[in-house]
C-alpha cells in the first residue's frame, strides 16, 4: 500500500516536470574557448603591416597600383587595393593621345625609276590613339606623261593634288609601339584634267591617215582602298613600313571621250592592287609623370640575371641606369 503511494507520487512528479519543460524552452549560451582567438594572428608583429607609402609604386592608366620589385624591376598589380569593378583586364595600355606621325611615301618615285609612267610623291599625317586607332590623312601629287612605244597616243595629266582620309587599326595595340601590324581603310578623292594627244590613225583598208587630239576632259573620281601593312622602328623616332592596298572606284564622273587611264592617287585604272613604302617620323606626346617613372624603372633597372640573388638590406640604395635612386627603409621606420 505504501509502495503504491510512493509510485503514484513519483509518477505525478515526473508528469509535472515534463509539463514545465515543454512549456518553456530555454537556450543557454555556452562560450567557446576558441572564440577569443578567431580573427587574430598571434604571430603578427607591428612591423608586419604593409606601409604602402614606403613601397615603390606607380599607377597605370586604369588607376591600378603597380608595385615594383626593386630587385628585378618586375611590376605587379596590387590586386588587393582595387575594387572588384576594376579587376578586369585593361583594354587600353597606352594613353588616348599617344603620338603623332608624319610620313613620306616613296613608292611612286621608286616605281618611276623602274619604268612606271605616273605618280609623284605622297605625304601623310597620323594621330595615334591608344596605339590602337590611328586616323590618317594622306595628301599627294600625281602626274603622268606617257607615250607608249606600241600605241598611237600621248596621255597627259598635269601636276594634280589628291586626298585620302581613313583609319588604321593596330593589332599590336598593347604591345611594344615600335612595331605595328595594321589594317585600314581609305576614302580617296581626286579632281583632275587629262589629255590624250597626238593620236595617229593610218593605213587600213581605206588607206587613210588622221592625226588628232581628244578634247580635254575634267573628271571627279572617288575610290576606296583596303590595306594591310607593317611598320617597324628603325632608329630613334624614325620608322619604316609598307602597305599592300586593294583599290576600287566608287564614283566617277562621265567622260564623253573615254575614261582616264591614270587617276592621281588611285593609280592606273587597270589592276586592283597597289602599295606604298613609307618613312615615318613619330612625335611622342608628354604623358603622366607616374607613367614616365614606371617606364623608367621597368627599362632602366638591371635586367634579370644581372643582379645578385641576395636580398637588399634596410638602408641599401640602388641606382638605375637613368640615375633614379631607390633606397630600402627599415621596417621600423
Amino acid at each position: 500500500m505504501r509502495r503504491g503511494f510512493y509510485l503514484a507520487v513519483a509518477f505525478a512528479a515526473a508528469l509535472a516536470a515534463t509539463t514545465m519543460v515543454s512549456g518553456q524552452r530555454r537556450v543557454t549560451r555556452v562560450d567557446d574557448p576558441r572564440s577569443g582567438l578567431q580573427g587574430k594572428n598571434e604571430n603578427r608583429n607591428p612591423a608586419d603591416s604593409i606601409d604602402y607609402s614606403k613601397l615603390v609604386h606607380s599607377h597605370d592608366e586604369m588607376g591600378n597600383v603597380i608595385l615594383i620589385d626593386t630587385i628585378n624591376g618586375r611590376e605587379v598589380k596590387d590586386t588587393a587595393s582595387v575594387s572588384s569593378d576594376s579587376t578586369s583586364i585593361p583594354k587600353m595600355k597606352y594613353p588616348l593621345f599617344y603620338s603623332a606621325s608624319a610620313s613620306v611615301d616613296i613608292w611612286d618615285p621608286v616605281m618611276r625609276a623602274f619604268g612606271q609612267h605616273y605618280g609623284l610623291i605622297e605625304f601623310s599625317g597620323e594621330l595615334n590613339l591608344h596605339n590602337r586607332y590611328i586616323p590618317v590623312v594622306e595628301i599627294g601629287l600625281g602626274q603622268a606623261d606617257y607615250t607608249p612605244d606600241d600605241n598611237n597616243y600621248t596621255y597627259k595629266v598635269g601636276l594634280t593634288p589628291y586626298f585620302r582620309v581613313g583609319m588604321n587599326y593596330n593589332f599590336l595595340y598593347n604591345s611594344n609601339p615600335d612595331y605595328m601590324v595594321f589594317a585600314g581603310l581609305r576614302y580617296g578623292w581626286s579632281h583632275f584634267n587629262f589629255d590624250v594627244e597626238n593620236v595617229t590613225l593610218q593605213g587600213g583598208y581605206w588607206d587613210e591617215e588622221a592625226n588628232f587630239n581628244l578634247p580635254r576632259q575634267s573628271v571627279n573620281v572617288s575610290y576606296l582602298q583596303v590595306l594591310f601593312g607593317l611598320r617597324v622602328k628603325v632608329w630613334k623616332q624614325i620608322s619604316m613600313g609598307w602597305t599592300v592596298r586593294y583599290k576600287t572606284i566608287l564614283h566617277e564622273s562621265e567622260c564623253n571621250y573615254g575614261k582616264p587611264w591614270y587617276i592621281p592617287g588611285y593609280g592606273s585604272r587597270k589592276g586592283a592592287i597597289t602599295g606604298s613604302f613609307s618613312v615615318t617620323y613619330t612625335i611622342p606626346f608628354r604623358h603622366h609623370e607616374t607613367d614616365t617613372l614606371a617606364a623608367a624603372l621597368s627599362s632602366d633597372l638591371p635586367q634579370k640575371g644581372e643582379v645578385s640573388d641576395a636580398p637588399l638590406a634596410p638602408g641599401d640604395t640602388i641606382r638605375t641606369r637613368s640615375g633614379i635612386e631607390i633606397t630600402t627603409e627599415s621596417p621600423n621606420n
Partner: protein
Amino acid sequence: MALAAVLTGLAGCNTSGCENNRSALPMMGFYNIRSGEPVILDSIDFGGVGAPGDSLLVSSGESTQSFYFPLRFDYTSTAFYIHYDYKEQGLDDPALNDTLTFSYSTKPFFESEECGAYYVYHIDGLKYTKHLIDSVAIVDSLITSYDMERVKVFFRLAEPETPDDPNVDPDNPDNPDNPDNQGKDPEAPAQLRREVRL
C-alpha cells in the same frame, strides 16, 4: 637584282595586249530571210565603193558568213557593194549588184592604255538596194571596238534543187529534202536565186 626585276615587272605589268580591236570595226553577217538562220556564201565579191585599188573585203571563192567592213573616218558616209558571182544562175551581172550605204557621225575616243585611241561611229542611216537583199538589220548603231555583229543582211535564197530519189525516204530525218531540215545547215553554201516578190 631580284628586287629590281620585281619592281620592273610591277611597273610594266599594264602593257599586256588589247583584248578588243584597236579600232571601231563593224561586223556584218549573212542570213536567210526564210529561216532566219546564218548562211555561208561562197561566190560573192564584197568591197568598198572607191576603195584604193578596187580591193575587196570578201572575194569570190571564199566561204563567208560574217566579216568586218571598216568605215571611212574622214567621211560621214561609206558605200559598199556586193557582186554575185553565181554564173550558173545568171546572177553574174553588175546590174544585179547590191549596194549598202551607211551614213554616220564620228567621235574620237580613248579606250584604254593598251587599246589606245580611235574613232567610234554612230550609224545615223542606211540605204541599200534590194536585188537579192531582202532586208538589213542594224543590231547596234554605236560602233566601238567591242567585237560583235552589228549588221545583219537577209538574202532571198533558193534552196538547192536535188532530183527525187525513189530509194530515199522523204520522212527520214537525215534526208535533206525533209522540210524540217531546210535552211538549218549553215555550213552548206547556199545558192542564190533572184526571187520576185508577189
